[in-house]
């Protein structure tokens, strides 16, 4: 409302962020856990004095660099790019609360990148001891960057005491920060194992392959024990409405939440009875299948995490459409068009209701809805009369708890209702007289075509 609007046809802005974010999360958690995997596997090679293992770790580190340094880093920038385009007001809020946290995260990121290069290019150049230290520096910096970003991410769902104190530390150490950090750390370690399984499955030599497959599979086990506990702790800390949405309040969200748990369980069971128990039978297609399940878990879980935050983008502070609760009353009184910047009109007249409706849709609905695609409005209001839409708009937050209330004057609301009603063609009642019968009833019953001749 304060900013221009970017309408993305079919998928909408939220999905655009989601697509980039899911891929980034799947790689960036590997970036953290994978660092630990590299140093521990390297140390294992030295301890067992096994040059074959060391050779595997070297190859794995190339894979690591190509996935993490390139895709992980660029897609992370991509999330930042996309949130600024889709939710500029929320991005601005996060920047104002957390710019120093982000600056600190940037320092860790820079150390991480530098360490990864020195680690990768230093294989045959640095002595073992120094090389391992560089690996540890990488992992610690990567985990610290997760630590910082986790505080910012969790703030959006549970800003906690920040809502009243406006204190940085209340925002950062919010109610879900610690349980979420535990979950993300465990996911990182599990993903390190999952990616490790892919490179281990590609080893040609049988003995080494069996050894490294079993080793990598073992990395999934701690997560299978700790994640359920972390999950329960996390869920106990989220707002009641968010909990209700994920546990039946919204069937789609509940199904996805269920999928997240079910797919995680399948992944751990497969990993345990497959590569962990019978590493010699493990192969690359199996590894890719497990990785694909891992990506699906990431996808559905992140989707649920985003979905339960509705109707807010920053819980209790800013609605999904970028309007803060503080602005709400003034907008209700003065009108949304009066408060907005990027609108084509500021007054509601008899002859510009379409224009008003369209403007209101852009500033209050388009952040979650499209017209014809995802969450499409044309379908949502199909068959609804203008009066019924207007009634719905008056009670949005009661009828649909995950939607922000409509904010604006009565005239604006009516204009929006009229515009929404006009998205679908009018169903006009039939008033014409009935047609005369030209075909005898018996002929119709015997089969249309011949009878009509």
């Amino acid at each position, binding site marked *: 409302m304060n900013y221009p609007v970017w*309408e993305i046809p079919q998928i909408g802005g939220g999905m655009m962020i989601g697509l980039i974010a899911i891929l980034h999360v799947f790689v960036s958690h590997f970036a953290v856990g994978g660092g630990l995997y590299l140093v521990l596997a390297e140390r294992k090679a030295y301890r067992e004095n096994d040059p074959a293992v060391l050779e595997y770790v070297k190859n794995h580190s190339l894979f690591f660099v190509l996935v993490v340094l390139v895709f992980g880093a660029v897609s992370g920038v991509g999330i930042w790019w996309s949130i600024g*385009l889709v939710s500029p007001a929320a991005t*601005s809020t996060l920047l104002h*609360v957390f710019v120093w946290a982000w600056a600190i995260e940037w320092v860790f990121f820079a150390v991480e990148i530098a360490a990864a290069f020195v680690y990768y290019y230093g294989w045959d150049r640095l*002595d073992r001891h120094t090389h391992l230290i560089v690996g540890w520096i990488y992992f610690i910096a990567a985990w610290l960057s997760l630590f910082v970003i986790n505080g910012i991410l969790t703030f959006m769902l549970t800003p906690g005491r920040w809502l009243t104190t406006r204190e940085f530390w209340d925002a950062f150490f919010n109610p879900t920060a610690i349980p979420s950090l535990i979950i993300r750390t465990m996911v990182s370690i599990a993903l390190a194992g999952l990616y490790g399984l892919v490179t281990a499955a590609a080893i040609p030599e049988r003995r080494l392959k069996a050894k490294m497959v079993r080793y990598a599979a073992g990395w999934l086990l701690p997560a299978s024990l700790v994640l359920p506990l972390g999950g329960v702790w996390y869920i106990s800390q989220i707002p009641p409405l968010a909990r209700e949405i994920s546990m039946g309040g919204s069937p789609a969200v509940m199904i996805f939440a269920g999928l997240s748990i079910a797919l995680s369980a399948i992944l751990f069971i497969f990993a345990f009875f497959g590569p962990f128990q019978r590493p010699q039978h493990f192969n690359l297609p199996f590894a890719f299948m497990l990785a694909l399940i891992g990506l699906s878990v990431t996808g559905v879980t992140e989707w649920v995490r985003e979905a339960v935050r509705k109707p807010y983008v920053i819980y209790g502070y800013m609605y999904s459409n970028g309007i803060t609760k503080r602005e709400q009353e003034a907008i209700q009184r003065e009108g949304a068009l009066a408060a907005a910047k990027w609108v084509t009109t500021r007054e509601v007249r008899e002859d510009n209701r379409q224009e008003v409706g369209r403007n209101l849709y852009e500033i209050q609905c388009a952040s979650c809805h499209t017209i014809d695609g995802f969450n499409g409005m044309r379908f949502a209001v199909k068959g609804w009369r203008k009066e019924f839409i207007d009634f719905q708009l008056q009670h949005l937050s009661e009828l649909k708890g995950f939607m922000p209330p409509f904010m604006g004057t009565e005239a604006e609301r009516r204009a929006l209702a009229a515009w929404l009603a006009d998205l679908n063609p009018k169903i006009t009642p039939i008033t014409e007289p009935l047609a005369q019968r030209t075909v005898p009833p018996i002929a119709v019953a015997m089969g249309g075509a011949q009878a009509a001749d």
Partner: protein
Amino acid sequence: MSPLIPYPDPLPLPAPAWLLEALLVVTLFLHLLPMSLLMGGGTLTVISEFLGRRDDRHRRLAHATARLLPVLVAFTITLGIAPLLFLQVVYGPLFFSSSILMAWPWLSIIGMMLLGYYGYYWHSFQFERLGRRAVWITLASTALFAIIGLLFTSNMVLMLNPARWEALYRGGRSGLQLDLAEPTIFPRFLHMFVASLALSGLGIALLGAAKARADKAFGGWVRQYGLRWFVTATWLQFAVGFWFLASLPPSIRSLFLGGGAFETALLVAALSLAVISLLTIRRWLSLGTVTILGTVVLMAVIRHRLRAAYLASQFDPGQLAVQPQLAVFALFVLFLLCGIAAIAWMVWKFALASGPRTEL
């Protein structure tokens, strides 16, 4: 003042604007170095790869510079994050608006960055095997990074021109309103591009000076070749820079031509350092390097003054509400020092290591 400029964020800035702007300029300078070496280095690698088909010295040079390109991408991105962060927190109302107008081109930067980055890696790892085809990969990646540069220029100019927003927004909410018609965009982009050729030429000269210790003939040639690029591009810059200056709106241009004492002094100092560099660099490489880096620092400051001149009476960061987060800022400084120490230690260990020379 344009009525479209969004209201400032209701939350106060977590530090005075001057501090955030100072960090913006400092980190932008740090970003400009690898960015220029990447843009110019990619271009010069393409040229050397073509010339290398007949001249073995160029083939060797291209091999050496091509291996640096992926690392330069990483440095450019990493050092680019900080200035963009400080830009967004201070100038968010302007930056978010202009970015949204050109949302698709702006977002496409991510995809192009990914492709260009992987292209350089592919090229770097498979240089020998790719043979004559290698040059097309460098060319494609370099072209992608040049387009990214042009899109950045376009957005950085558009955020300073709220008067152009309305006409663009009237074109639709599709996020396809790329504004390349603004008269300063091409000279501004060319100014940056020619600077990147000059700095990359200098980079190659420094590489040659380092190589001369092991291979005097080749290293000496590389040094001379790099300097030729530096000198030619820097002389050319006087013309391009003047074109850029001439393309600026008259009221802003005059600030740098005597109208504003500080702005004029900055420009004179920057140009003087560039001339000193040109006159001395063939004999004293390090003096020429230091003086031209001085020009880059001053140019980063000039760029900031130019932004302020554009936004005068439209958007004044000094007016924004402030509530400093002193403790978190102190923590940032502390971690920054630790981070620099950690990086320095690793690079030092790497440089001193006695193992086989797997050069970056």
